[in-house]
């Protein structure tokens, strides 16, 4: 892998400075409402550096990262730092709350589906039930034991913070930027890590506007091409980009970690607004995972969202 480009491009977009950088294989940006370029540059540096730090620490592609260390422990208990312990505990809570639908140990399933999809060009095939059955015992976060800072995974189990990392980085980097110094705390800043957005309080009388395409209103929300918000986070999960077409049938990229099969009839896209990017991101994923019951779930949980079918 080539070394990632770690530069920040700063341009003035009155009344903001727009910082553009690349992290987690996504185009990222930050809108910073300060006048002074030096100050904007410092804030942008804080945001990007935090995103890169989290990318380096948790990417499963980094051999030296913590994810690799966990996945290569081969059944042996390993000691985690406090941040990773907290993230893992968070993942366990997500697993519990979603009744096993949100599982950071489900990555092996993707390998099977991707493998069968790629197997022979033009001859995509469904994985056999047997091959799926074979990996199911390696999935299920309840099998992981976290005691204090010590984590023990069953042999062969793999975890991936990919489903949490970007949202976590967005929330963390914004908070870090606001904590930077006293005058930053009230600065209007929007962080966008590849479509996962989180913003501090907007400028007075000038809420954040984001555009999103091809949306249909949830039955109790107003349809709007533009979403307006004062602060908080907005994320979108979608299936439209990534699908497997096998025997003329399309299978969503979303896999149910309990059955090993793609989720049936997931919405095309789900956009969620929540106070933090992590909440928004997890909720949009969870709604998607409900498949045909996405709307019912969102309604019952009173989640502020826009679901596109």
């Amino acid at each position: 892998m080539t070394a990632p480009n770690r530069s920040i491009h700063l341009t003035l977009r009155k009344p903001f400075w727009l910082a553009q950088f690349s992290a987690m294989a996504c185009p990222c940006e930050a809108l910073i409402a300060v006048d002074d370029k030096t100050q904007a540059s410092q804030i942008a540096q804080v945001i990007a550096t935090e995103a890169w730090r989290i990318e380096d620490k948790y990417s499963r592609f980094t051999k030296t990262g913590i994810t690799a260390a966990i996945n290569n422990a081969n059944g042996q208990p390993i000691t985690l730092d406090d941040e990773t312990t907290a993230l893992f505990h968070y993942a366990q809570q997500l697993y519990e709350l979603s009744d096993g639908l949100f599982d950071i140990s489900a990555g092996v399933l993707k390998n099977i589906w991707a493998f069968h999809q790629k197997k022979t060009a033009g001859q995509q095939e469904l994985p056999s039930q047997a091959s799926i059955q074979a990996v199911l015992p390696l999935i299920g976060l309840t099998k992981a034991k976290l005691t204090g800072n010590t984590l023990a995974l069953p042999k062969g189990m793999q975890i991936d913070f990919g489903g949490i990392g970007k949202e976590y980085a967005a929330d963390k980097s914004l908070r870090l930027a606001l904590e930077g110094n006293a005058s930053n705390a009230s600065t209007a800043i929007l962080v966008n890590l590849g479509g996962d957005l989180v913003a501090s309080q907007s400028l007075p009388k000038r809420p954040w506007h984001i555009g999103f395409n091809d949306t249909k209103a949830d039955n109790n929300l107003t349809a709007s091409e533009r979403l307006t918000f004062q602060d908080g986070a907005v994320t979108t999960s979608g299936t439209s980009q990534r699908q497997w077409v096998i025997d003329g049938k399309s299978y969503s990229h979303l896999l149910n970690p309990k059955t090993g099969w793609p989720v049936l009839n997931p919405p095309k896209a789900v956009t969620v607004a929540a106070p933090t990017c992590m909440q928004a991101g997890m909720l949009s994923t969870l709604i998607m995972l409900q498949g045909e019951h996405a709307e019912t779930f969102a309604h019952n949980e009173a989640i502020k969202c826009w679901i596109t079918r």
Partner: protein
Amino acid sequence: MQLDKTNKPKSSCTSRYRHATKLGVAAGLAQATTALLGTAPALAGDKSWDVDTAVLYYSETDRVTAVEPVISATKKLEGDRFWNIKLAIDSLTGATPNGASPADEVQTFSTPSGKNTYQTPESELPLDDVFKDTRAALSTQYTAPLSDTLRFSGGIAASREYDYQSVALNVNIAKDLNQHNTTLSAGLALAGDRIKPVGGKPIPLSEMTIGSNGNKEGEDDNKTVTDLLLGVTQVMSPRWLVQLNYSFSNQSGYLNDAYKVVSLLDSDGAPQGYVYESRPDKRTKHSIFMRSKSHHGKDNIFDISYRYHTDDWGIDSHTIDTRYRWQLNEHHYLEPHLRYYQQAGADFYVQGLDASLTELPANISADSRLGEFTGTTFGAKYGYLFGDNKEINLRIERYKQTGEHQTLPGNLQDRHNTFPDLDAIIVQVGYSFKF
């Protein structure tokens, strides 16, 4: 819960959901996220309390002095909802005119309780100088969006002082139209007041008895106020908005000031006695308010408004209020303020009555606030912004009031100042912060 039923036939989720939805997935997630990211997030937007504190000092030359500490806190709740609570304490001391006109001789009056008397030297305006009052007012207001374009606000307020209690309710609805560029609003407020004057409620037009508590009819009385407001706010450009309001107010019940009297004067202008004032028991007001608020330069704001008020007591008034917020730099601003107020007196306003009248008019009052006068307020506010949305400000203003003199028996107005000018200074220190 419906979720269980609809999901049950499917393979994915049954039992655990029931467990999870006890708290709700979204609520559980919110808890877990807060635990991960920290319980006291540094987001400015999460600092949910906006607190404004201020102490106002008002002093009229030789008369009333008021000190009013105020604390107002607004909590921002999820979903653009706001909750405000405000506490104000008014402390007034000093002397206030009792309504009687100055005289060539020393005048003796009864204190409101009737237990004591006080004297006013010749040619001076009679002032009740034992005036002392403390008022505490508490109010709370809740604002929430009902939809993307509809907002609701409702509140309760209560205030109490030793001779006066008030409870009020208000509701407002605001509707945004035209891509949030036009806002229509409608509000209704109801107040119920209970007045319990010291020494009882004087019989209107009856004579003030000196040194005894006579001519009283009962202990207390009530007053109700209904206010209706209709308004439209229009965004003219991103830097300019205008507002137009109409308000209607209806008061009924006990509208007298129990401590005010009117002098009965003989043909030389010498006081023959004092009668308690008598105002109508109803008052209907209408007012039109226009305002323009515009941004200039970087952060400067020019705010100008005009109000026309008219009521069935005959008080017509015009108010022009203008302020310019001049943002000197990131941390300092200066806001000059100028207000001009002019009112025509109430139909029944008198500065004294001819004692030889066989029958007094049904309604009379010598309360200078109901007279014809002009008032000018001028001053400035200086603000210092620092740290995390903190602000300290200082406001210093001067209020000057000039009244019209009526022709009194014996041309008393030529010998004495029957409507003295008022000169007051207003100093306010404020501190705002978030937490």
